[in-house]
């Protein structure tokens, strides 16, 4: 069963002092820091960072109950809100004075709902009457108002990744006004309305901030709305409605995630998957908005997998009672004291833990039967490579009847991603070569994600092991290799030599040389010098390999030396000479090499012919038929003289 939990809490959570009457706990989504504030800060504030290593501890004066506390980026300035009107600041930069300064909101009679840092020194106050955008001047210990905007605000949501603040306005709270902040500028984006379920008694805030979350999914910003349906009527249950928020243009409703149940929900986004936790069933749903359901083009999504609970988690009991014996106890999952933050954070304030939610891919493999869907799903995940490779291995090892079409689909999916990467890489290289003269946009090198499974990956982790298997028929092995080569060709990817070698090795092993022969005939195995040499080595078991190899060398047209060597080794001395003459290389060949080969044939006439050829060459090149000492042909000259007599030499032309 544990194989079925596809969600888990991370192994190394951030631990902090649990919330109590004397210890208040705050979480800053921007820096992902947990603040434990004891007695209003007088007895200490401990800040734990996302990786639990850089904790910061300090004290501050107790000036009343802390409502909100956050560092600016890089922990340069600390902002603390203790009153509904103002925010206090403390410099944390080494050479600046440490004492506090304060800023009251500009709008009269407004209440500060909260604040958000948008850079190391820029901050936004959100009041019930609008937003105020300030620059903090730490050396002057004051703030400068950059911009403000008046609007009635019920509540707000901040997305630190994109520095977008979403304000809830109007009586029902369902008109959302986004603002984007960037380098001292504040831009108002077009507002949009969340469609509420039909209600009976309006004129009251209906859209709660608990039901809205903002997150980036596949590089796009989405507003997620948890839409609860009343149990009455035909509605099958709650759903999550995604609104696609763009910098320009209106925000559009883009996806609907069907939950098919009701109750209390919480949202996370992990690895571009939307995770919906359902408290009453203690399970979570997983949605992939890129996964298309075949039966609808309306972007209505069902969960990718059946709902499962998060993998059971054990925590070590701490406290005075448990000194020596720290036996871990199961942690209560889906606890009502959990707080869930975007994108992937779960905090249990009562136990003092911050976890990152993680998706485990291995259980998905067994839960998602449709291999084509599974591959698509995996290819979109971050740490997918090894899982994909193991899926490939698994799929091949079983050799189920009728699995070849599935194998083909899987290969095609892998190679599509591979090809896209190769193309991006190629256009990047071309752009770089062309230089920066055109336009000012800097070329970004394409990122190689784990989903790029290249030939070497497939070879190392899947195919080379697969071809070694004794329990799979060689017919299937060859079919799979050919299918992979077909798929590469279909995407116009150059096939690497080692794949051909694998095919050849398998065919030779099973003595399927005529099959190999036919593949070569149709150039399924592309020409290369190593392949030609491999073929030559097969000649003794399969004579036609000789011609195949020589033809290949000739087609390559860069292997003239090799061709000469091959022909000479077969004692085809005249053939070698004719060949080298046909490509115009006969003035540069070694006379000695040819004469050696001719002598070896023990064919007198052949030796005579070859000798005469080189005499004529000498005559043409140097004006004399004699060999130069550098050619080391003395032995052959002597033999020629002995065999044919002095008068057989060409007479030097004397003027």
């Amino acid at each position, binding site marked *: 069963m544990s194989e079925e939990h596809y969600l888990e809490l991370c192994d190394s959570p951030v631990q902090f002092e649990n919330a109590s009457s004397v210890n208040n706990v705050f979480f800053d989504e921007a820096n992902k820091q947990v603040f434990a504030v004891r007695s209003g800060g007088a007895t200490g504030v401990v800040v734990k960072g996302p990786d639990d290593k850089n904790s910061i501890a300090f004290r501050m004066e107790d000036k009343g109950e802390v409502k909100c506390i956050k560092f600016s980026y890089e922990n340069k300035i600390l902002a603390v809100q203790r009153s509904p009107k103002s925010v206090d600041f403390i410099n944390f930069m080494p050479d600046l004075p440490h004492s506090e300064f304060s800023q009251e909101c500009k709008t009269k009679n407004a209440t500060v709902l909260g604040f958000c840092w948008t850079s190391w020194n820029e901050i936004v106050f959100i009041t019930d009457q609008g937003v105020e955008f300030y620059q903090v001047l730490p050396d002057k210990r004051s703030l400068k108002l950059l911009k403000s905007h008046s609007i009635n605000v019920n509540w707000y949501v901040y997305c630190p990744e994109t520095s977008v603040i979403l304000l809830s306005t109007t009586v029902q709270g369902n008109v959302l006004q986004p603002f984007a902040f960037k380098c001292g500028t504040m831009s108002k984006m077009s507002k949009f309305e969340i469609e509420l379920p039909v209600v009976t008694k309006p004129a009251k805030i209906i859209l709660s901030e608990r039901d809205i979350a903002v997150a980036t999914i596949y590089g796009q910003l989405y507003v997620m709305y948890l839409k609860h349906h009343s149990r009455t009527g035909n509605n099958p249950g709650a759903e999550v409605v995604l609104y696609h928020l763009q910098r320009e243009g209106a925000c559009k409703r883009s996806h609907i995630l069907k939950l098919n149940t009701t109750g209390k929900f919480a949202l996370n986004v992990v690895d571009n998957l939307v995770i919906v936790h359902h408290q009453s069933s203690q399970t979570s749903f997983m949605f992939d908005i890129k996964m298309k359901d075949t039966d609808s083009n309306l972007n209505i999504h069902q969960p990718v997998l059946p709902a499962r609970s998060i993998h059971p988690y054990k925590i070590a009991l701490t406290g005075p009672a448990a000194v020596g014996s720290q036996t871990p106890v199961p942690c209560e999952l889906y606890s009502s004291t959990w707080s869930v933050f975007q994108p992937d954070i779960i905090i249990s304030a009562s136990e003092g833990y911050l976890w990152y939610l993680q998706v485990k891919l291995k259980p998905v493999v067994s839960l998602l039967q449709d291999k084509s869907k599974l591959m698509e799903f995996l290819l979109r995940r971050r740490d997918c490579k090894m899982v994909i490779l193991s899926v490939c291995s698994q799929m091949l090892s079983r050799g189920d*009847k*009728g*699995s*070849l*079409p599935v194998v*083909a689909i899987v290969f095609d999916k892998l190679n599509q991603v591979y090809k896209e990467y190769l193309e991006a890489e190629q256009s990047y290289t071309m752009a770089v070569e062309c230089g920066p003269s055109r336009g000012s946009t800097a070329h970004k090198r394409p990122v190689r994600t784990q989903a790029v499974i290249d030939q070497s990956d497939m070879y190392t982790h899947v195919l080379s092991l697969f071809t070694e298997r004794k329990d799979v028929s060689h*017919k*299937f092995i*060859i*079919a799979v290799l*050919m*299918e992979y*080569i*077909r798929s590469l*060709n*279909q995407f116009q990817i150059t096939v690497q030599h080692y794949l051909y070698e694998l095919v050849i090795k398998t065919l030779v092993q099973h003595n399927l040389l*005529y*099959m190999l*022969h*036919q593949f070569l*005939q*149709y*150039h*399924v195995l592309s020409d290369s010098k190593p392949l030609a040499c491999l073929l030559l080595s097969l000649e003794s078991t399969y004579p*036609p390999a000789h*011609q*195949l190899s*020589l*033809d290949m060398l*000739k*087609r390559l047209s860069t292997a003239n030396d090799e061709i000469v060597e091959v022909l000479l080794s077969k004692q085809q001395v*005249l*053939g070698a000479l*004719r*060949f080298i003459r*046909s490509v115009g290389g006969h003035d540069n060949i070694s006379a000695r090499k040819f004469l050696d080969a001719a002598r070896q044939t023990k064919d007198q006439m052949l030796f005579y012919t070859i000798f005469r050829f080189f005499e004529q060459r000498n005559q043409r090149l140097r004006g004399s038929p004699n060999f130069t000492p550098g050619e080391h042909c003395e032995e052959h000259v002597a033999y020629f003289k002995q065999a044919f007599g002095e008068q057989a030499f060409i007479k030097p032309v004397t003027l």
Partner: protein
Amino acid sequence: LFSPRMATGMQEKQYTPSLLNFFIYNPKFGPREGEEEKKILFYHPSDVEKNEKIRNVGLCEAIVQFTRTFCPSKPAKSLHTQKNRQFFFEPEENFWIVMVVRNPMVEKPNKEGKPPTIEYQEEEILDTVYGAVLQQCYSMYKLFNGTFARAMEAGGVELLTQKLEKFFYRYLQTLHLQSCDLLDVFGGISFFPLDKMTYLKIQSFVNRVEESLSLIKYTAFLYNDQLIWSGLEQDDMRILYKYLTTSLFPRHSEPELAGRDSPLRPEVAGNLLHYGRFLTGPSNLKDPEAKFRFPKIFVNTDDSYEELHLIVYKAMSAAVCFMISASEELGREFCEQLDGLVGPQLTLLASDICEQYNINRRVSGPDKEPQFKFIYFNHMNLAEKSTIHMRKTASVSLTSVHPDLMKILGDIHADFVRVDEDEEIIVKAMTDYWVVGKKSDQRELYVILNQKNANLIEVNEEVKRLCKFETMDPFLYTISTKLVDMLVTKTA
């Protein structure tokens, strides 16, 4: 039996070579005097008087025996006489097949009343050609019946003679000795030119079918009567190819051409239209009386000796042979399954290949009538290509050149066979034709050029030039540069 052809002169009558006798004997079967008839396993024509049969067989036996003393390793292959020529072939130990061919002849009319004079043209027929025809007879028999030895094991002389009778009675009627030529010597395979991607798709198709119908042991794929893929070994494929292209396909294409049994009536399998149909076995699956009997063939007779059902299935121009162990029972269910699986896929593939083929043709330019014709053969892969021969039909193979030129090609080839070295021979034939033969390693190329007033050097240059023009694969397209590189110029 004679097919007279009107020759140019006055009322001369020309007779082409024809089959006189064809017999098979085993000298061990009747070694004692008076038992000679037992040696004879098959004799054509069957109505020959018993003693004559015995005499002829005895003569052959004696010739073979006598000539063996001169060269024990190479027994006599043929005997030339004025009127006819005999060919001997021992395909299995002590089993001899003999074919007697009457030489072509000219009948010249004489003055009134006198009988016409007959001139035998004993040099007009070639040993290599008819020797190959004889071997082919045996190969074809073996393809459908297995070896003589196996028949003997299974049912003795009685079974063997039955089989021989049954097979050769029909087969000999399809021998057209007058139109045999160099291509019969080669017994090559014409390969279909195809790009790599389409070829891989075919591979994929074959693999999938073999995977889902695991009964299938071997598959062969042809398009336009040309081979693309063979799961059989080369030698078995060679004879199966011969059968398909000279017998089975022509038999089925003639009714198509005549408009009967139109293939353009698609079948519906599931929601897919397809044009697939069986060329062997059931001609119509919907017929409740349909028979599910397939011809049996024998392959790998040297080692594993397999007997297989031969299923030939065709959709448009694509034909696939599926071979299944003969011990399997094939019935309606299997055929329907195969039809449903293969029909739609093959139809799709056939149109893919057709499309690709047309693209290639467009790239290589419009079909111009070239100034030369050629035959290419590669012993290494049995690839052959001829622009001399027209489409083969069940009855005759047509050539586009004069038989005299074909004879020259045969002569050149006979010269090539005698020597191991690479060679080139250029012959000036009558009527402005030049014939060039080149042999290099395993390849042979014969070109017929029609060029007025050309001299030897020009012809040599011309052949080089013609060859250099083509850049495609030698056997897949036409002659290539690479080929010419291999074909070393050496004028004999």
